């Protein structure tokens, strides 16, 4: 492997890490704070992709500019779902929320299928595929932009959770539900905000993915799977853990893919299994 090739593979992995971090960010937040494994996360991502796609196709809105709108729509939807549905079963055993989010994912995916058909779509702009070259390493603008957006959102969420009142309430609820309640935190509202933020992040991830991969209504499942793997790899409880998990996932996927592409998924998940045995709390997670 030449040095240039190695550099390119490294850059590919870094660019992929950013997008995957954003894919897993909302999923990790919802899981960490509310102990809900949101199986509808991928469906939210797909919704974000469709919002960006239609804004670009029908109104010629630049895909990067449609990200805030996709986030807002998904945020609102997430809020509604948490308030109207999930809060009703939040005290029930884990299986109930599993079933509920699983049902939601089927519902959303089938509705999209019904309204928009199973056609594959991509957002293709005049600058799609263009980029610049550093030595022999090529860096496509869209992927770089996506990395930038991801970093801003990851950092933004970290700041929000650390420095704002609601953010601290969210973290407090995740740490100790009863103590949070005793200090006057309105748990139902905090849960709704958390789920809404998670959905909003999924919306942003969907917007970015619509420019990068061809998608159809069924794309979400594989991204829920990835988000899950990333959370397990990195561990829950901290925004930085998501970034670490995403980086491990991306580097393994890309580097194994460069030599043994047919085994890339098997190796990635084998690492996941080994890690679960050795460090069940994740690489960066604190042991209980």
């Amino acid at each position, binding site marked *: 492997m030449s040095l240039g090739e190695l550099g390119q593979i490294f850059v590919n992995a870094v660019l992929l890490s950013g997008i995957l971090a954003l894919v897993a960010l909302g999923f990790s937040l919802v899981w960490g704070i509310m102990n809900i494994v949101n199986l509808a996360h991928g469906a939210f991502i797909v919704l974000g992709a469709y919002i960006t796609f239609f804004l670009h196709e029908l109104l010629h809105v630049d895909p990067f500019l449609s990200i805030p709108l996709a986030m807002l729509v998904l945020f609102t939807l997430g809020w509604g779902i948490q308030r109207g549905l999930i809060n009703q079963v939040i005290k029930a055993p884990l299986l109930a929320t599993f079933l509920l989010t699983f049902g939601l994912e089927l519902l959303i995916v089938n509705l999209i299928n019904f309204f928009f058909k199973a056609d594959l779509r991509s957002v293709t702009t005049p600058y799609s*595929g263009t980029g610049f070259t550093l030595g022999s390493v090529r860096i496509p603008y869209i992927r770089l932009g996506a990395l930038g957006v991801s970093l801003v959102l990851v950092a933004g969420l970290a700041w929000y959770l650390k420095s704002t009142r609601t953010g601290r309430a969210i973290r407090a609820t995740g740490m100790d539900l009863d103590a949070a309640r005793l200090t006057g935190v309105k748990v139902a509202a905090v849960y709704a905000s958390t789920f809404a933020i998670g959905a909003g992040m999924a919306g942003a991830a969907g917007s970015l993915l619509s420019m990068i991969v061809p998608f*159809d209504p069924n794309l979400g499942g594989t991204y829920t799977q990835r988000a899950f793997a990333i959370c397990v790899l990195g561990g829950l409880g901290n925004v930085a853990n998501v970034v670490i998990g995403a980086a491990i996932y991306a580097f393994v996927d890309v580097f194994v893919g460069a030599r043994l592409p047919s085994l890339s998924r098997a190796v990635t998940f084998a690492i996941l299994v080994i890690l679960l045995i050795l460090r069940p709390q994740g690489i960066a997670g604190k042991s209980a």
Partner: protein
Amino acid sequence: MKRTATVSLLALALALGALPAAAADTIVFGAAVSLTGKTAKEGEYTRDGYNFFVDKINEMGGITVGGKKYRVEVKYYDDESKSERTAQLIEKLINEDKVTFILGPYGSAPSGTAAPICEKYKIPMIEANGSAESIFNKGYKYTFAVLSPAKLYLKGLVDLVIARDKTAKTVAVLGENEPFSKEVASGGADYAKEKGLTVVYQELYPTGTQDVSALLTNIKAKNPDIVLGAGHLQDALLIVKQAKDLGVSPKAMGFSVGPSSPEFRENLKGNADYIYGATQWTEALKYNGDDPWKTPKAYGDAFRAKNPKYTVIPYQVAESSAAVIAFWRAIEKANSLDPTKVRDAIAALDIMTFYGQIKFDSRGINIYKPMAIEQLQPDGKKYTVFPANVAEKEALYPMVPWDKRK
């Protein structure tokens, strides 16, 4: 008043006449196709192709067996693009719905799981969308495919490049890790070697991959003249997108599946230019068949008239119609609805259709029909460029490198 009365009387007469006929004199075909999941689109093409010819048979009065006309119906299930589901549904079609003829699912993997079920119950299946030879090397007697086998898919593109460019020497092949695409990939690579080219890269990627940058980085370093992709539409789109991202610019880039469907250009816009696609069939081919349409063009026009949402007719539609034609001709020839007798008639079939010749080798696959190659050109259209005797237009070769395009 009088007019209304006549109309209602007529309607009543029709209804009375139609009811017993529908119950007794109908041949029901069973089909499990992917209407949701990864290959939902192709499944839809398959279903539309089946329905188009089934409707035509009914319009013409039905299938004649023993001097009696039978209407035709298809009982569909959705296999959700999961091949284990296909097997269950075929079993259900045979056992519960009591169908005696099966039209195949979409794809090689589901066709492969459907075949042993048909074998077990001795129910003939004609499939139109599974061309992996692994299905046909198991000695099944009841499974037939009207389409050309997988290993022939990319052969034409190799021939095309060799005919145009004596300096082309190297080939990179990347394929999806599933039975059909694996055979396409190795068939293409073997043929290239046979023709004296060097295969500098040959790898498989997992089904449903979301990133092929690693493979393309590797390929770029080897700087091949030809890049051959063997996968499905989503993969082909991803490969072209990322090839542009990474500046992979071979002289020719072609795919087994993808470029023939209209979504290829819709997704890639101008980036689809110069890309080649293998195809089982195009409307530009000059066949003259013995069926209600005879020529590909006439078939295409008739199909569009009935299904206005199609502007271009994907080959999956045509081959699916061809599977129904094969059943129709075989049942009439057998002059019986007995599954075993119909099976023998299918095995002996040799007909020319708008889709090309339909004839099965001893394994049940149609090796007699050649594959064609299409190219998407910068005028926004797609042309059949190979084989030369049926080509509409000359291929634009070599592909203009990504950074030299406006």
